[in-house]
């Protein structure tokens, strides 16, 4: 039972607002952790600090034994953490394939000479990338596999979410951060998406997932353990049923009188 992600005393302020207030949070390798709490409790800020979009004001984050507190977004990605965004952040004018391949950046050749003049080698890399992107999207929605070169902007929200998750998965990350994957989708669509995520994890046992979610049904079904935040602090931790029964959690979040 080793912790793959470990935050200690993590603090982040925005002016007078303390978004993360000395948060201690540990995620064990290969588990699925749900991160829940009311709006503004610091869930997304936690993701942004871990992935290097925001710098931490205090505290530390270690991932896979290395300190990534001050690492840039690029370094965090290369270390094996990838994420989705609460508000879908796909490039709408680009194709499905293009969007997914952005996530595969660390496996692609960067050199100008290679890209411009070694077109045969480039084509081989393209074919390999195409096969893996296609295999991945087949898991989520086989219908999309034949539309790889159509712009993402024409697709409904659920397909965009699927593509965003494929983009996060294609590089084979060790840790996946899902920020409200159900936002903007119906109940049935959410259920379908979660089944697909579980299927991907079924095939790749080494994938650890932290999921921020407001749909308690989702949290109950897929997480091994839950962490509840309020005002940037951890107020409860444990299996969903135990956490949901906690009086403090009910008061802060679930709103059960």
């Amino acid at each position, binding site marked *: 039972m080793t912790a793959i992600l470990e935050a200690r005393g993590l603090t982040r302020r925005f002016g007078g607002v303390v978004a993360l207030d000395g948060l201690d949070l540990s995620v064990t390798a290969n588990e699925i952790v749900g991160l829940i709490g009311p709006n503004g409790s610091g869930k997304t800020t936690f993701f942004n600090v871990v992935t290097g*979009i925001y710098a931490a004001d205090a505290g530390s984050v270690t991932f896979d034994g290395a300190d990534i507190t001050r690492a840039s977004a690029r370094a965090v990605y*290369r270390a094996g953490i990838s994420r989705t965004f609460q508000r879908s952040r796909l*490039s709408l004018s680009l194709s499905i394939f293009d969007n997914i391949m952005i996530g595969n950046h660390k496996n692609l050749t960067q050199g100008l000479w290679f890209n*411009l003049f070694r077109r045969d080698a480039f084509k081989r890399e393209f074919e390999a990338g195409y096969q893996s992107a296609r295999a991945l999207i087949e898991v989520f929605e086989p219908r999309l596999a034949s539309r790889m070169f159509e712009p993402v902007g024409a697709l409904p929200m659920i397909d965009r979410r699927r593509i965003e998750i494929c983009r996060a998965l294609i590089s084979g990350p060790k840790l996946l951060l899902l920020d409200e994957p159900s936002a903007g989708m119906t109940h049935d669509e959410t259920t379908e998406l979660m089944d697909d995520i579980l299927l991907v994890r079924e095939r790749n046992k080494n994938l650890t997932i932290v999921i921020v979610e407001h749909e308690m049904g989702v949290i109950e079904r897929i997480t091994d353990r839950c962490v509840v935040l309020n005002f940037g602090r951890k107020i409860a931790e444990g299996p969903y049923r135990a956490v949901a029964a906690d009086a403090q959690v009910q008061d802060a979040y679930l709103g059960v009188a």
Partner: protein
Amino acid sequence: MQEKAPLTSVWPGFLAVVAATAFLIAFLDVERPAIVIALLAGGIVAVVAAAWSGAGAAVGGSFVVHEDRLGLCAILGLVALAVVFHENHFVLLLVTTVLLYSVACLGLNIQFGYAGVMNFAGASFFGIGAYTSAVLNTTAVPHLLVLLIGGLLAALIGSVLLLPVLRTRGHYAALVTIAFALLFKTFLEVNDVLGGPQGMQVKGMHIFGWSFNDNIEFGGVTLSFYMNYFVLSALLLAAAFIVVRRLERSWIGLYLDAVRLDETAASCFGLDIARWKVTAFTTGNFLIGVAGALFGMVGAFVAPNNYTFADSLILVSILLLGGIGNPWGVIAATAIVVIVPEKLQAIQEYRFLLYALLVILVLLFRPEGLLPRRVRRYFAGSP
């Protein structure tokens, strides 16, 4: 394996290239103002009709699938044009100008169209190339090498702007380049070594003992000396086109798009934002500089007033008009912007009013430009 390519015939594209070539030759040939205006109106009606009737889409489809072959057809069209106007100095100079401005706009397209780095100093980098020829053509440096040096100098001097461009975004980065454009012109005007406000003569090109500024006698036929520049410019444009196309159809093209569209998401997937902006800005300026160096030799004269902020704006408007990110659109728009005002000399300064009107109309009714960019296909004809 990949999906089957859509069944799209090469013929609509081929016919479009033939029609465009015939129209261009006719338009360049006529002199009487009334006929010029009639032809222009006819051309506009034909294009609008093609767009509405779906013929435009068919042409677009065949360009997607058969781009390589249609590119060759376009080159043959240029050859036909050269044959028709083989002794016409004016037309060959005009078309050479189109070719070289197209190269410069393709450079701008990498910066602005792909990476989203706005450059309102395009004419300045073009001028750096031209002044490079003015200075170096009097020395023993081989003239083909001068073209290369012109490009490298534009890229090098452009790198002075990298720090402020990387530290700012959007409009602020654009302001940095505007400041540079103004500075550059003032620098040329006060600098006596470079001829001051009067400018400098540029010696014509000589390669391997071949003088570009002599008419060519060819089996009893006399070819205008501009034919030399025309051929070299066409080769340069073909090379620039291939480089820009390959750039777009590579991972780098994908990264440039990702940087333009969402820097935060791009950095979360490991993209080095600064690296790709630098790559785009530098390669773009290199292309602009090479085109400028050759243009300096073609025009035989350089002066600060030819490389002003207003000229940079023309280059940017070509990009907006043609369709940001589409090299075919860039070339078509350059032809329109360079040739039409020359042929409309009869209506004098009103032609610029017309040009401004055209840009406003396109932005209103077709904001993606005349030939909008399509979704990336990594190989010609692939799905």
